[in-house]
């Protein structure tokens, strides 16, 4: 059974239709990439799933329960936790305390929460920064903090909104490793990403949005052959390069 089942979600802002009857599923234990050009409605869809927006119509089923219209904290408590595209550090709190807030979701005990926070700090390589106020981190650091904080809540489904944007290529590599490790540990991931070399090699499935409409939902190597996706988003050059790399075994 799918862990997340998005059914005909439509989100309208007045006359503007940001999401138009979008449906897809996220299988338990998989990595699903959500891509599309700017303004395609990816973040809006994220907001609809995580309760920050209430969809105009359609429904979202998570872990067998209808979560449409629940509040963000209720959805987070059920195990679907997100990061923000525009990073939102709790600025005056230290990096460690930021992560600790996440860790307190599953336990009120200090010892357990501190241990969980330390673990997530380590996974995201933030040890050297943990005593700093979160507001002082570089953009890459803040992105990693978003990940660590969400991870600390012990989610079933982790939803990452462009965590690799603005990262150096080394940082991207580290993030990809982290994401693979998370999947190993049993977390299902849904990832909005523009950094194709980050997401394409690791995703089990890609969902492509354009103009609020889902134009494709398929495995990455089939997505790159999809004419409509190439036209809307990838561009012919990228598709060729990706195929060449794939055949040459350069990615992985």
């Amino acid at each position, binding site marked *: 059974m799918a862990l997340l089942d998005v059914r005909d979600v439509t989100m309208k802002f007045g006359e503007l239709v940001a999401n138009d009857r979008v449906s897809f599923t996220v299988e338990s234990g998989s990595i699903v990439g959500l891509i599309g050009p700017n303004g395609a409605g990816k973040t809006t869809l994220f907001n609809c799933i995580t309760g920050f927006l209430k969809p105009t119509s359609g429904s979202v089923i998570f872990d067998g329960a209808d979560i449409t219209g629940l509040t*963000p*904290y209720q959805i987070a*408590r059920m195990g679907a936790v997100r990061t*923000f595209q525009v990073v939102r550090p709790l600025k005056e709190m230290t990096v460690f305390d930021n992560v600790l807030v996440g860790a*307190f979701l599953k336990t009120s005990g*200090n010892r357990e*929460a501190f241990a969980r926070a330390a673990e997530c700090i380590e996974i995201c390589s933030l040890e050297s920064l943990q005593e700093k106020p979160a507001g002082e981190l570089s953009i890459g650091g803040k992105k990693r903090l978003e990940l660590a904080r969400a991870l600390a809540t012990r989610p079933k489904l982790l939803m990452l909104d462009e965590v690799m944007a603005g990262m150096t290529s080394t940082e991207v590599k580290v993030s990809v490793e982290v994401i693979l490790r998370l999947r190993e540990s049993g977390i299902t991931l849904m990832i909005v990403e523009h950094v194709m070399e980050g997401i394409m090699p690791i995703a089990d499935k890609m969902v492509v949005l354009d103009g609020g409409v889902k134009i494709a939902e398929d495995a990455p190597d089939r997505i790159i052959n999809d004419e409509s996706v190439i036209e809307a988003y990838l561009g012919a050059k990228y598709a060729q390069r990706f195929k060449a790399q794939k055949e040459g075994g350069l990615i992985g």
Partner: protein
Amino acid sequence: MQRKALNKKDALWLGFVVLLALLPLAPVVAANSFHMHVAILILLFASMAQAWNIIGGYCGQVSFGHSVFFGIGAYGAGMAVVTYGGTPWPGILIGVMLAAAIAVVISYPCFKLSGHYFAIATFAIVEIFHRTFLVWDWVGGALGLDYPLVKEGLKNLMWYDTKTGYYYCALILFLLIFGVVRWLEGHRFGYYMRAVREGQETAESLGVNSTAVKLAAMALSAALTALCGAFFVQYNLRVDTPMVMSLDMSMKFVLITVLGGSGTLVGPLLGAAVLIPLQEYSRALWGGLGGGVDLIIFGLLIILIVVKQPAGMIGIIRDIGKRVLKQKSAAKGDSADGTP
């Protein structure tokens, strides 16, 4: 290493508390009941500011409505003694619980507003309570309540000969409220309050029910504030609306905390230790000018702090500490270079 540092801090606090406990025995203080009076007020206002600090500092919801809770606590004790002729204790208990309940009822709609709008709404609430209590005969109306002469002691929470009894009550109040905040700082609820202050949506995305956190923080803050109000009226032996339930009183909660450093454990004490002596001694010195000198100084100090160091006095102290550390390390560097 972290544990060691903590112990050092604890020892510092313990030493400070012992010092406070011995203060009434100091000749300078014992000989002059006015000094004692100032010491009591410092402890009381530090406690009030700390109670406010829970919702206003840690949780980031600036309330100008705290004189309402202070007043409810004061009227609770006052009416138990004056209207019903008993001991203040049942009145204190009812006042504290009522303040928490009223805090939840009036905050719930106000929390739908954010930032400045929340603060403005709390202004209006003080005015509503102020006007109502002024014309409400059951609570003494505009005349207020004057305490009768009763036997002194802990049972009636009243002393006439010396202020020592009041001093120790104030000290217990202070330790209780600082203890509560100290405990909160290190536990889940304290982290949640700060998370709500720093970013409500972020907190929600991590499973924090921000409305519940704010309401609980407000209820706790109001209950502790009411306790302070009860002590105040027992010390003052009179309660009337303009004194306890007014914007003037509300402002003091905010000013002391902001001056000292809001959202910090020491801030409220620092603020009270500076503002209260200023208020009391200037009143004693220049009271003949018609009052208000202390308020002028208050105002100037606040302007200075807000412009120079929005983190309050604690921020200034931290800055100085950093500068000293820098100089020390710089001096070390010089001597290393200087010696051939």
